[in-house]
């Protein structure tokens, strides 16, 4: 595999990591956060810097599915925490792909010595 694939992997990993991370506040707030429930810093960011953030309120479909799974598996409260852990895990997977793509060294089976001038 060449350099091209490495950079593609790094970019894909990085973008995935950022995208998944963006869903973390949603999980942190119990998975169906409407704007007035957002943490102050996030509200501030959204209003003052005009950062377009995902509309977490519309992710409630996932929220009901995930909560149903957690209830079935025996969890009793704070379902958002579990969802947060899952998103953190997925983001770490994505960042691991990114880091590995940046750091990997090709041609490990063969070393040709550089000719000194």
């Amino acid at each position: 595999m060449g350099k091209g694939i490495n950079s593609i992997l790094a970019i894909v990993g990085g973008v995935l990591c950022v995208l998944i991370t963006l869903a973390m506040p949603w999980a942190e707030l119990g998975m169906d956060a409407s704007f007035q429930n957002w943490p102050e810093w996030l509200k501030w960011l959204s209003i003052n810097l005009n950062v377009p953030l995902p509309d977490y309120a519309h992710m409630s479909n996932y929220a009901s599915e995930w909560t149903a799974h957690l209830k079935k598996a025996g969890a009793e409260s704070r379902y958002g925490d579990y969802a947060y852990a899952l998103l953190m895990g997925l983001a770490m997977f994505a960042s691991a792909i990114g880091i590995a793509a940046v750091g990997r060294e090709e041609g490990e089976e063969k070393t040709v010595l550089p000719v000194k001038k």
Partner: protein
Amino acid sequence: MYSSIPKGMTDLTLAIEKAVNAVLTNKYNPFYYHGALPQFYLWVLFLSGLLLFAYYIPTIDNAYFSENLVNAWTSVDYITDTLPYGAVVRAIHRYAGDAMVITIVLHALRVWITDRYRQYRWFQWVSGIVLFLMVMFIGQTGYYLVWDERSLILTRMTSTALEAIPFIGPGLKTWFLNGGAITNLTLSNFLFIHIGFSFSLLFGLWLHYVRMTRPVITPPPAINYMLVAVLLVFVFLVPVTSGKMADINTQPTSFEIDWFFLWPYYLLAHVDITTYWVLIIGGSVALCLIPLPSLYKAAHPVEPAEVVLNKCTGCSMCAADCPYQAIEMVPAPSGSRFKKLATVKAYRCSGCGVCVGACAFDAIDLPNLLDTDVTAKIKALAEAQ
């Protein structure tokens, strides 16, 4: 070479590792950090355990059910249901323990399959077995600490099993329960064993590493991320829950078994106690004896490197490169032109010849393969037309 292991098995392992290299490259191949994986999970366990320790209350005081009841089970319940991210930290602690057992077993298997456990390595193998037994026991005490009905059964089974050992049995039982029966003091003893033994793992690990130069104990960051990510995904997929609170006046009889740590209890429930101890102790001793030299007649013996005394300049390059800490630099005898002299600790030497490659003065040699002979052979081959 890999004489004592079936050749197909080693070749299969090497082929799998090569396939992983093709995808991840050698730098990120987890097989090349197999010993560092459980070590990384140990750090995860220490950190998550510290957070749990802050809220855990080691008592069984459940004689009076009142609303303000505070005991081990309710404190774990509080951690799980009320504390922000408490459930996540608890589940990380649980699954990091399971992951540590898996990675330890993989580590041992790879070391065995690639024939890296005997001769000069016997000490690492035996200390590894002792560490594994310690990890098992620490994990089991973790299951007692939750203090649900399973904990109660496990505590009773353990104290019965300990009591059955001749001579020292009753003493062990008293030590284990911190008294004659299960009391509040029992759980503080369990907490002490759980944490105290965990720290003594560090001493065991020092012994495990002491004969190796530059032991590989930290995987590269990308692998660390993966290791934590696996835990976090399991935290969501299989949330950790407690059973019903233990009540020492009841006799619960069945529990859900965790196959990573609690398999000895499965054994204990299905054979009588004498057989159980014979199997457990016999099995551990047998594992420790695996590197015994007399089991391997075909293996080629290690011939330790020898220093050529009048050539050694005391430059320490061989000592720096030796992968097994087998070369010690000592003060040179009086009359020498140099300050230091290399000496080989034969019991640590693997006969690999790395020191020969490190020496620019031809001053260290493998007795069965002199570097002058190798050079002469190379010359003869190159000159023959």
